[in-house]
């Protein structure tokens, strides 16, 4: 029973790491970036390639899995995304789907269409027991890493100068500019962080969700569900949503397998009917 709960939490945490970047771009920058999964895929491939071809240890690849997509994200933001901020949501959808198409085909061309696999270090394999509850080591690791990320993010946004500037830039671009805040730079950094987080999520998720060129589309729906249920006003919302979806999905499949894939969609619809603005609605 508790094992199931922990599995669910680990899964939810993973979803959150992948979704957090999207929540930021969507909520703070008001940009519908369906190509978010492509950055997650880049992170995944960075980890898989550096481990399999260069023999780096798993932990050492994780910073790379953050940095590379972040750099790619920043580049894409400056060259492409920046032009799209003022467009309608529908055009942003078309734009980002076009990016997904290209990313999927490029990954296929560069790395082949089969599943990319990694072998975790020994200390992350298997499971251990606390008070009779068996816990997978990797899942415990996921929970720890993701929890640290969540706290770090929250602090970054609420306590630092960067966070304050970002919020100012989002609330009123013109006023922020007037105050001497480099809005473009802040957006680029934010976007890069979001992409980096997605990449990290992709890298951490290889073991659980697999990795192949269709990855961006595969996780898109899940990530969107998390962000929508959570609402885009805060990061706490998506975090709660990710935990709910994660545990509900795992527990649902365990206790009522007949419901199968129905559960997650039913849950989403019900939650959205109850709270159309997301779990944590905008303050205004």
């Amino acid at each position, binding site marked *: 029973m508790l*094992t*199931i709960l922990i*599995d669910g939490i680990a*899964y939810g945490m993973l979803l959150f790491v992948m979704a957090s970047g999207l929540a930021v771009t969507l909520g703070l920058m008001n940009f519908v970036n369906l190509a978010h999964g492509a950055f997650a895929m880049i992170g995944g491939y960075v980890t898989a390639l550096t481990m*399999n071809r260069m023999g780096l240890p798993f932990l050492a690849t994780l910073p790379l899995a953050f940095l590379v997509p972040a750099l790619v994200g920043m580049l894409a933001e400056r060259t492409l995304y920046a032009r799209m901020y003022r467009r309608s949501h529908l055009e942003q959808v078309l734009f980002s789907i076009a990016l997904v198409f290209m990313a*999927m*085909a490029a990954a*296929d061309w560069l790395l*082949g*269409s*089969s*599943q*990319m*696999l*990694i*072998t975790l270090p020994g200390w992350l*394999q*298997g*499971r251990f027991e606390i008070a009779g509850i*068996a816990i*997978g*080591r*990797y899942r415990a690791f996921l929970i720890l890493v993701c929890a640290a990320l969540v706290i770090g993010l929250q602090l970054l946004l609420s306590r630092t100068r960067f966070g304050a500037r970002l919020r100012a830039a989002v609330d009123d671009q013109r006023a922020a500019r007037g105050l001497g805040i480099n809005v473009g730079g802040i957006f680029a950094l934010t976007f890069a962080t979001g992409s980096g987080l997605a990449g990290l999520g992709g890298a951490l*998720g290889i*073991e*659980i*969700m*697999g990795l*192949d*060129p*269709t990855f961006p589309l*595969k*996780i898109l729906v*899940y990530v969107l569900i998390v962000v929508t249920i959570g609402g885009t006003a805060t990061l706490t919302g998506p975090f709660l949503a990710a935990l709910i979806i994660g545990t509900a*999905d*795992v*527990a*649902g*499949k*365990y206790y009522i*397998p007949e419901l*199968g*894939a129905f559960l997650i969609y039913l849950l989403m619809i019900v939650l959205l009917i109850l709270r159309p603005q997301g779990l944590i609605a905008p303050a205004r």
Partner: protein
Amino acid sequence: MQRRNLLLGAVLAASTALAGLPALAEGTPFKVGLILPMTGPFASTGRQIEAAARLYVAEHGDEVAGRKIELIVKDDASVADSTKRLAQELIVRDKVGALAGFGLTPLAMATAPLSTRAKMPTVVMAAATSSVTESSPYVVRTSYTTPQVTSKIAEWAAKEGMKRVVTVVSDYGPGIDAEKTFVATFGAAGGEVPETLRLPLQNPDFSPFLQKVADAKPDAVFVFVPSGVGAQFMKQFVERGLDKSGIKLLADGGITDDDILNGMGDPALAAITGFHYSAAHDSPANKAFVEAFQKANPGMRPNFMAVGGYDGMHAIYAALEKTGGDSDGDKVIAAMKGLSWESPRGPVSIDPETRDIVQNVYLRRVERQGDQLWNVEFETFEAVKDPGK
């Protein structure tokens, strides 16, 4: 009754329409329309089959009985209505002599009525649901059928003294096929299946299902999932310590797909699989095939899809040889019936009754040889027919 007349009318209309086309005669090229998923989640299927088909043509020359063989590859992204449209275009516009490929069952099923209507020899190189060959008298299969392999796994499990086995299958046609076959065969042999679990096809996390398996404490678990997903399954199986708790992992060989087996690492060692082809099959024909395949496609190891494509091309070549280059649909299909040859997977033949492949089914375990993992065969069931029909 009326339906029958209509069908007849349709066939007549189609054949008169086709008669108006330029005669498919001696000297003109014989085109093979290869419809495969080249993009999307099943792209690796398409990639393997295309590579193997091209290899066959490269090895055996592109001319048979005076006809030049041309391959036309089309991507259907595993969407059935695209498959059907592409097939139709290949028939009426490109005037192919045979259709081949078909990554998934619904793709083959969508095309079958067309094959009947146009009397088009259709070689199914991948789709594995038993009923595919029943969908049209012009369909021949060179891959395998799920029941063919699963029934032998179940027989073997019973023979080894296993009493309780839980099944875990993906919730789609072939998975359900496998579940039914296993439950029936294993039950008939005196075994018990206390639980049958079905995984949603889009399922990123297996943990709840594996927990259920652990709770049931069976002798073994039988698994059928699409290749690619299998790696995750085995990893989580081992992560959960199920292998150490004495539960054996039995599976259809798709789970230890040769294409990606090397990346799976030690968790794959837990699996005992039944299948019709292993790249490690010990025969001169297979050694030559694997070597040539890897030479032409660096970094790829041929898997069961590749051998399906390779043998599919062989069926087309051999049939044309028999008809002396005549590409009349009925004659080609008649020539394919009863063909038998030595394939890289071992001796195979085409059942003249069902047009389905008859082949050996092997039980294998994964072994490390040098720095590579291989599916090593340890038991053979000879000349197995599809029990589903």
